[in-house]
């Protein structure tokens, strides 16, 4: 996991933000961390930049002078060149509907203003971990279907066999996503910890086991077993998983 950590160190991050001072402040936070930053205040500028240079991550304001940041995000997702570019929307609009709309528009994360610098950096790390994570199948634009369960990573929504929404904690969402990307594969506790928390956990730490047992309680009914425990090793999602493109 050290390799991933060093890889995160030098990034080219593009910041699209029409408020000059906020853009400058964000840039200084990122450059202090050792990243290189390109600033843009308009959608047109950033589209030109993305055509010319390699960008590792895009921080996108939702309200831009020349259009909706969400529209830009959709355009980026539609173009093969930028379809996999990690995008974090940064917006003053923070309602549940607006967040869901942002994630539906293809953003990897949605950060509501105002935010602390540490929070921004943590979100960037989490998004890049997902994008470059093991298996690299951490795509958002898919729907997983297994045993009547329907999981939409993009909306962070799980629906049960009866069509009812099942609520999950942030950890459970990440855990379920990891299982569904790797069905029938044994995932060690270390592997799960690295994917979820970006770090190793102490040998006797029960965090992963607690999270798995909570997830089991929510998705397994009538004595069915989807997640099997592999002794002294980890867990395996045993049920067959179907992956379809989100419409």
């Amino acid at each position: 996991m050290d390799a991933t950590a060093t890889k995160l160190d030098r990034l080219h991050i593009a910041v699209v933000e029409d408020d000059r001072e906020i853009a400058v402040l964000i840039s200084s936070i990122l450059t202090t961390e050792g990243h290189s930053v390109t600033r843009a205040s308009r959608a047109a500028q950033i589209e030109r930049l993305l055509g010319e240079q390699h960008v590792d991550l895009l921080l996108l304001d939702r309200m831009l002078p020349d259009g909706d940041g969400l529209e830009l995000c959709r355009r980026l997702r539609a173009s093969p060149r930028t379809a996999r570019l990690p995008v974090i929307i940064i917006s003053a609009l923070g309602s549940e509907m607006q967040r869901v709309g942002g994630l539906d528009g293809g953003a990897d994360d949605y950060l509501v203003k105002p935010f602390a610098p540490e929070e921004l950096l943590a979100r960037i790390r989490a998004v890049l971990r997902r994008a470059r994570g093991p298996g690299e199948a951490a795509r958002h634009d898919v729907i997983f279907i297994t045993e009547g369960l329907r999981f939409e990573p993009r909306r962070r929504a799980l629906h049960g066999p009866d069509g009812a929404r099942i609520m999950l904690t942030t950890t459970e969402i990440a855990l379920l996503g990891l299982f569904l990307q790797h069905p029938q594969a044994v995932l060690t506790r270390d592997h799960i910890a690295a994917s979820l928390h970006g770090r190793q956990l102490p040998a006797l730490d029960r965090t992963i086991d607690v999270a798995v047992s909570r997830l089991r309680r929510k998705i397994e009914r009538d004595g069915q077993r989807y997640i099997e425990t592999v002794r002294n090793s980890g867990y395996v999602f045993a049920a067959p998983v179907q992956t379809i493109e989100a419409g």
Partner: protein
Amino acid sequence: MLRSIFATTARQVAFVVGIATISSNLLVLSVWIALAPGSVLPGSVRALVAEVVAVTETLRALPPEYQPAMIAAVAQSMQWHIAPLGAEEPAGRADHVLNRALRERVKERGLSIAHAVMAPDGSSRHGVVISLRPADSPALSVSIGAERMRDVIPSMLLPPATIGLLLGVPLLLVLLWMASRITRPLARLADAAGGVSAAGHGLRLPEGGTSEVRALARAINGLLERLRHDVAERSRILAGISHDLRTPLTRLRLRVEGMQEQDLRQSLRADLHRMESIITASLTLLEAELREEPHEPLDIASLAQTVCDEHADAGHDASYHGPAHLVLRAQPGALQRALTNLVDNACKHAGAARVSITEAPGQVSILVEDDGPGIAPTDLPLVTEAFRRGDASSAGSGLGLAIATSVARAHGGRLELHNRAAGGLCATLHLPRLDAA
């Protein structure tokens, strides 16, 4: 019982029209019978009786030596068998309708003939035997065969009074159908209006049907239009406030990080954090009032579990005891926000929260109990109002309970707060079960 039968306007209309129709028919019928008693008999019955009387009269008028020839001719051409009759009546069931017609005909002609109509087979359709006893000549019987009787509409068609009432049943069914057609636009309108809050914006009711229904639909559409306009304006204001307050706040927040003085930075951070949470809570309250989030089937047990787990992960003592699954139509995000606020309060004031779910017919309740100090009884009605706080010095926006109340109302339910007998507070979200399933 009666109330449920006449629960719909359609049935009431059908009933009124039915009663009016039947009673007016009965009135016409009684007037008719009073003015022309004979005319209520079926025409075919009267025709047969007239023939019988005419043949009999002709026969009696003939000299006796010609009578056998006429009897033979009648038997030949009409298949009527005329024979002399003894003292006793022929066997069989008396046909009252034919008897009555005969009596009226004899009276009309001013004759003096005693008579009886019998159906030997029990049914007049299979043939009748008519006995005629003129005062001045020998008695005779006229047997009429099944062939002729087939043309006579059977006596059943002038039925006893009970069967006459049965005729009203199909009439009532037709009326019921017609009345339900007349009131159907109203029912459709009610359905459409009921679906408005769930379907959200852009919905218009169909302006069809009778003029009253059209006027009602137009009025509701006008109301919806104004409502939509207000909602759109509130959304715009909300977005404006969000942007205009949060943008400078973001600048401040980021600038503070660059400050050198440790103490000042700390206190500014705390103030900013407080402003931020008040703005977020205010906006959340306005959003809850806008009710934009769509309702969907939600496993509220998983919601309660999730809220408790998130608090437990953050180091609080929050636990859920209740069913593993329970599905209700709800706004997942809003309900999670409401429950989070209640559990937050319990953790903040009592250090621990116990969440449970109870079911009653038509209602589900989510309870959040704690062992804290509770709320002074005089403050209980006030704490759910925005910007009111039981304890003025406590941290927090003071909007948590107002948001929970608004969310409960958006679900057609309510938030109830009461001090537990054993000490501590119990906050209950009562949510109606709209889906019968």
